[in-house]
Each structure stands twice: as C-alpha cells, then as structure tokens.
C-alpha cells in the first residue's frame, strides 16, 4: 500500500491527480489538503510515502511548507509555474509536473519515484535549497512552534542568531528555531534592513539604538529591547558603512 496526500488549493487540480491515480490500485489517497497548514498537519498524522504539492497556495507556499517538516516525504510538485523547476529539484523533488499535464507524463513521474524507491530509500534532506526564494519569502519567515505554524513578517524580527544546525529568530514574543543557515538569511533578507554584524548574528537595523564600546577595539550593539549583541570587527565596519557614519 502506497500512502499519498494531495496538497493543492484548487479543487479541480486535486481531482485531476486523483483521477490519474485511479489506475494505480495499490495507491491510497489518505487526505486532500487545500493549504500548507493542513498539509503539515496531515503529513504529521499520516506519514505518507509520497505527496503531490502545489507551490502557490494560501498563507505559505509549497517550499515553505516543506521546510516545516521534520521528516519530509517524497514530493512531486504540480504547478503552472515553470520558473521554480530548478528550486524544486534542489529540494530533491522526485519530479516537477507542469499544469496541465498528460497522463503519460504523470505515469512517468510515478515510475521514476517507484524506481528510485527500490534502489535507495527516498528521503528529502531537511536542508533545502538556499539559492532561490519566492518574492514573498523576502517579507516573511514561516516557523513552527510546537504544533503551531507562525508567519513572522520580517519587520517583527529583532535579530537572528546562529544555533548549531538552526537559526534562532528573536522577536518580542521570544525566539523561534528554523533549520536554515545564517548565510541563507543574509542572502534572502533585504541587506538594507538586516546586517550581518557578527559571524553568529544578523541584526534588524530598525532595532538598533546605540553602538557601545567595549574593552579594547570591541563594540556591542544595544537594541531597543535592551539586549546587547556582540559586534565583530568586520561587522562593526559593515554596520558603520550601512548607517553612513
């Protein structure tokens, strides 16, 4: 029995996949979801072998949804946008179906997945691509706290801190963890708003109130929240450059 979940915000797009899947008797569709929140919940609950995933969806897109999963299943993307193909394969997608797709093309994708599953266990590495991102991802960060999915508009982020394989995202309501690297955020967030002031810190300029000298040549940044964040020598130079002082 192959467990499948279909995630797409358009009902007819889901029924298309469902119809194509009727020719596979050993496939069982456990759930259909019309947004990423439901998708995360359903995947956690059913642990499917394979999901069909749309990219443009309400609230969080398909890539953001995948980032929230601890053990992502195999993914076949279904979308009308061809510009995300590269990113999809970087996300270790099994295949990328461009809507509208023919049954033959769909069958090929399924065969590809079956073949790959027999030779090696198909698992998507959790660390997704860091090269490309959707425009909306410049304005928000999607995180998970317990079972809740939280969308953080970037202006609510005070600063980001490196934390092993994760990044701690500090806000006024505490911090959130996200399995990404500092360089991902440095590349994605607007460099006019966020400055890498230290190997382990990325600062929202809006939060800075003062730069304080520490012993010798060292400095710290004082934030509006009262928190002090260390500045490296290069970080200090970069900060002065951005602030124009």
């Amino acid at each position, binding site marked *: 029995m192959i467990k499948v979940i279909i995630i797409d915000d358009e009902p007819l797009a889901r029924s298309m996949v469902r119809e194509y899947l009727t020719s596979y008797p050993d496939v069982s569709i456990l759930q259909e979801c019309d947004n990423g929140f439901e998708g995360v919940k359903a995947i956690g609950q059913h642990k499917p072998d394979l999901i069909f995933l749309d990219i*443009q969806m309400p609230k969080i897109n398909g890539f953001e949804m995948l980032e929230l999963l601890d053990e992502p299943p195999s993914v076949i993307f279904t979308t009308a946008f061809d510009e995300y193909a590269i990113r999809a394969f970087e996300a270790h997608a099994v295949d990328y179906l461009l809507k509208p797709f023919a049954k033959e093309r769909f069958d090929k994708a399924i065969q590809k997945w079956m073949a790959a599953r027999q030779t090696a266990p198909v698992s998507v590495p959790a660390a997704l691509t860091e090269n490309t991102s959707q425009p909306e991802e410049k304005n928000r960060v999607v995180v998970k706290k317990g079972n809740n999915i939280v969308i953080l508009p970037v202006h609510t982020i005070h600063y980001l801190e490196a934390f092993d394989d994760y990044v701690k995202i500090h806000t006024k309501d505490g911090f959130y963890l996200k399995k990404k690297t500092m360089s991902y955020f440095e590349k994605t967030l607007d460099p006019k708003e966020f400055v890498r002031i230290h190997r382990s810190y990325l600062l929202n300029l809006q939060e800075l109130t003062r730069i304080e000298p520490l012993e010798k040549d060292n400095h710290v940044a004082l934030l509006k929240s009262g928190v002090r964040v260390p500045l490296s020598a290069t970080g200090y130079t970069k900060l002065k450059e951005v602030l124009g002082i």
Partner: protein
Amino acid sequence: MLARIVRLPYFKFTLWWAFWTIVGTLLVHKLNFSWAVSFTDAAVTQLDWTIAGYCLNAALRYMPPSPKNLLNVMAFTLVVAGLFTFIILPYGMPLVMQYVDSSGDYESFLSHSMYVRFVIGWMQLLFVAAISWMWHFIEEQQQNQSLKSDTEKLAREAELSQLRQQLQPHFLFNSLNSINALVVAQPELARKMIQQLSDFLRGTVKKDDRQLVTLEEEIHQLSLYLDIEKVRFGYRLKSEIKADDTSRAGKLPPLLLQPIVENAIKFGLYDTIGEITISIEASVIEKQLVISVTNPYDPDTSQPKGTGFGLNSISRRLYLIYFNNNLLQTTAENSRFTTTIKIPQL
C-alpha cells in the same frame, strides 16, 4: 488660399523686394526726381539686393551660426555689395534709365550716391543674413520638436500595447488544468468553461486604448473572468458588483478592470485561508468614473506595500492615457485592501 500663396517659395522675397522698392521710390522722389525715375532706380537696385539676399538665404541653410561663419558672411556680403554697387550698378542702371530719364540729372546722382548705396546695400544683406539664421533656427527647432513628439508617441503606443498584453499565462495554464480535470467527470461543465475561456480571450485581443468602452462592457468581460476563477477556486471565491446605470454608461479604457480584480483575487486568496468576497463598486462623482475593488487580507502577516506589479502597470497605463499620476490609489484598513481608479469622463 492666402496660406498657399504665403507658402510659395518666392513669395517672401517678392514681398521683400516690393517693400524696399516702395521705400526707395519715396526716398529718391524726395530728392526731386520724377516718380518714373524714382521707381526705376529703386526697383532695379532692390532687384539686385533681393537676388543677392535670396542666394545668401539659401547658402545659410547649410551654414549654422558660428563665429567662423559670421566672418564668412561678413566677407561674402561685403564682396557682393561691392560688386553690385561699383560694377553692375554703374553699367546696368543707365541701360534701363535711358528710357525713363530725359533730363540727364540722374547720372550724376548715381555717381554721387555710390558709397551711400554701398553701405545701405551691405546693411540690407546683413539684415537678410540675421533673419535667415533666425528662420532656419526656428525651423530646425520645429522639426526637432515634431520628431521628438513622434518618437514619444511611438514609444507610448508600444508601451501601452505591451502593458495591455500582460495577461498572466498562469491563469491560462491553471484554467486549462481545471478543464482537463472536468473533461471526464463533468464534460458539460468542461465545455462551458472552454466557451467562457474563449470568450474571455477573444475580449482581450485587438483592443485599442483610445477606443473607450462602457463600464457595462467591461463588467461583461470581467464576469467571464470571474466565472472561470470561481470554477478554479470553488467555494472560496465570491464576488459582488455594485454599479448604477449612470456608472454603467461611463467610459473607460478597455481591459483595465480585469488586472485589478486579478490582483485582488490573488492577494485575497493567497493571504487568507477561508472564503473571500471581492467587491467591485462603481459610481460617477464629479465627472469621474470611480471604481473600487476590495479584497480581504491578513494585516498580521502582510503589509500591503505600494502596489505590486499588476497595479504598477495599471497606474502606468492611466498615466500614459490621461497624463495624471493620481488616478490609481490604494488603501488598507480593517483587513480590507481597496484599489480605486478614477477615469475622467469627457
């Protein structure tokens, strides 16, 4: 008729010659010569100067004003004035004058007035040079101006047509995907959707920005679009259109509303999870057709900044048609995002 005469190539010079001939005749008559003698003197002299002036004017077309050319003009006019006054006139004038002047007084007058004639003639030529330069300058300005406005017009047309053609291909692909899904399960609905899609697409091609359409027509085109989108998104998408008869008769450039509504649908559908209603309201206020499109959004997770591409191109189109940058405005309050356009009614 008059305008056509004025445009004749020699008209200005004939007028020039006639004017100075009258002045010259009066002047010479004052010195107690007969009208016939005065007129002949003036006419022949001025014919010489006018021919010289005509040549000068033609030459100056290819010699733009510059210090070097000014020197050339000075030298040229000096030589020509000298040639006419001291060589052509003393031999030419008596040939004509012998038929008119019986007294013989004229010959001594001619030889005595040589230097005065030379100076006046030279001044006249310089005057012609100055006017020519001014003419050519104005002419060139006008040519440049019309060339510039032609170029601008072409660029504007091209930009407008490009802006109109920005129908999102994703809309088409997603619609085709929906039809694909309907073909087996609900063939009747599939056929209906193909019809709607075709009607909609037909309405988006071959539209000229200057051929305004009524709001009624735009609403019809919009309904085709909304019906397709409702098939795609199912229960999540609702719409309402409020427009009275006055506003329905109002005129606007074609295909303006659909991109605004498309933007509102995308914003509304992708920013919230439940059902959404897109409201379209139209009214005529102070000779302006005011249309507003409203969609819900989530103020906690998104801040509508500016307009986004779809609206930028609408704003640009309105500017190119009406030369006014304030015809598109957006407001965001109480979780409702509203796009308002104002179309001047003539």
